[in-house]
């Protein structure tokens, strides 16, 4: 039974801008961005390279602060989070899926996944059980003790998704999750993320320029040159 408020805003950006200053030269990465993401929704942030998608993702993750405007993460302005609170929020409430999977090559899959569980405060035994259950659910239990270099692209992406959902986070931030995959595998990943959002009533924000994802998203935000074109 899920007790979350179905209408709860996981993310809310109000007039958010981010300006980078470099040697006296200012670059506006995102400008006056407004959008929100609710539980159970999959939102696609669609735009070409350099459009500001990554900046928005890092803003939402609390990795950088907006230059102006307000970015609310779980109903609290990211400016009001302490460094430790942001770290705990990332560990417990946000899952990340990266473009190149970014599994740690020197650790076996089980350690890659159990690491985030440990960051969230789970003990080693509980973490091991969770990892095994997750891999079973994703039908890749045989990769438990394998190193990332021994996995196929599809297995890597599944392992990366297992890591992202291990703590059952309220929000998943996916940065170009289909970029390095064949179309079949890419769609499989999107389906997995969508089913996670729908079945667990969580939020998924996908930053991508892959038009095939459009059919699976509840909301599509088109972004170009740091500005939202259409919501």
């Amino acid at each position, binding site marked *: 039974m899920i007790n979350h408020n179905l209408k709860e805003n996981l993310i809310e950006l109000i007039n958010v801008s981010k300006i980078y200053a470099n040697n006296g030269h200012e670059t506006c990465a995102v400008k006056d961005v407004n959008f929100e993401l609710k539980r159970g929704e999959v939102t696609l942030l669609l735009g070409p390279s350099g459009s500001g998608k990554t900046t928005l993702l890092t803003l939402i993750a609390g990795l950088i602060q907006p230059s102006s405007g307000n970015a609310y993460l779980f109903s609290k302005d990211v400016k009001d989070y302490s460094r430790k609170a942001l770290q705990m929020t990332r560990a417990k409430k946000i899952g990340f899926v990266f473009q190149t999977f970014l599994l740690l090559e020197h650790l076996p899959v089980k350690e890659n996944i159990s690491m985030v569980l440990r*960051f969230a405060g789970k003990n080693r035994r509980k973490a091991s059980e969770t990892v095994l259950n997750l891999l079973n659910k994703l039908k890749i239990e045989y990769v438990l003790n394998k190193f990332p270099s021994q996995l196929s692209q599809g297995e890597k992406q599944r392992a990366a998704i297992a890591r992202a959902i291990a703590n059952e986070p309220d929000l998943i931030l996916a940065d170009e999750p289909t970029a390095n995959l064949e179309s079949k595998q890419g769609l499989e990943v999107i389906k997995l993320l969508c089913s996670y959002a729908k079945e667990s009533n969580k939020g998924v924000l996908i930053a991508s320029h892959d038009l095939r994802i459009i059919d699976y998203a509840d909301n599509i935000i088109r972004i170009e040159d740091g500005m939202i074109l259409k919501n």
Partner: protein
Amino acid sequence: MLFLFAAYKGVSVGSVEYINKNNPDIWILQRNAWNILRGTSMLPLKQMNELKMIEGVGSVSPVLLILSTVKKEKPIATVYLAGFDPKCELGGPPEITEGTIKINDNEIILDESFAKKFGYKVGSKIYLQQDTLSVAGISTGTNALVIQYAFVTLARAEMLLGVPGIVTCYLIKAKDKRFVQNIQDSIKSKFNDVEVYDHETFLKNNIKEMETGFLPFIFTIAVMGIVVLTTILSLILSINILEQRKDLAVIKTLGAPKTFLPGIVIKQAMAISFAGSIVALILFFPLTYLIEKVSPEIKTISSLYQVISILAVVIAVSLISSVVSIRRLRKIYPMEVFK
């Protein structure tokens, strides 16, 4: 470092072995002389009879110590020549491994490492200044690293010095340990120009003298070693951090606690240091054996205490190197993983 430690112990023990193993109850030297390793002491030989007369004195052994050049065919080495009376109880080499201690004026006893180094055996001929002597014995406990003891009769030593009737010190054995304090008091009241030491004090004086000359040298090399080790380890860790930059950024993004990444660096530092220590320990014994074989005068003494001390230094070096390298972690930004 382990070798330095062992060499230091070897020197501090080996250099005073002659003093330690002779083990008289009382040492008498000229006023203001407090050791025999680096100091001058001259006492008249005629005092010997007066010393024998003191109540409680069991035996009096005179020793004349001089630095002398030993030759084979050309000048080869300097020895610390001890002239002793073979008829007396003390003053000679503490232990003979070959030959005899009962030498005559034309014979000499050489230190074992010195004999090994220069190829002397019992029966070899040796040139001591203008005289030719025959090697009659080989001794141990007479190696002070920078110089080795050699032993001749007191009469021969006097001849070499060219000033008869002079000795460096007297070694006194009491008839009973209970008399030692009374004998010391009697000597002090009877002779104005002497220093009187019980054996333990005199031994400590000599160890201290040796250490003040040798410790700063060892200390300097050890400090240089620690600095080099810390620098190398810091560089290795820093390179490691740069190589794993992406992974570390991922870990930061995923919400690693503040102490997690520094913990990894410290663990890496410890792992590298301990692996190095194990290799050093494995190599230490064969290398020491080899060095002692090539340079017999270098004597090492190793112990568990030394190993534990070195491990403590290794831990300290690891932590210092980690602290230096951990500063680089601050320049790894989680945003890097999104690029």
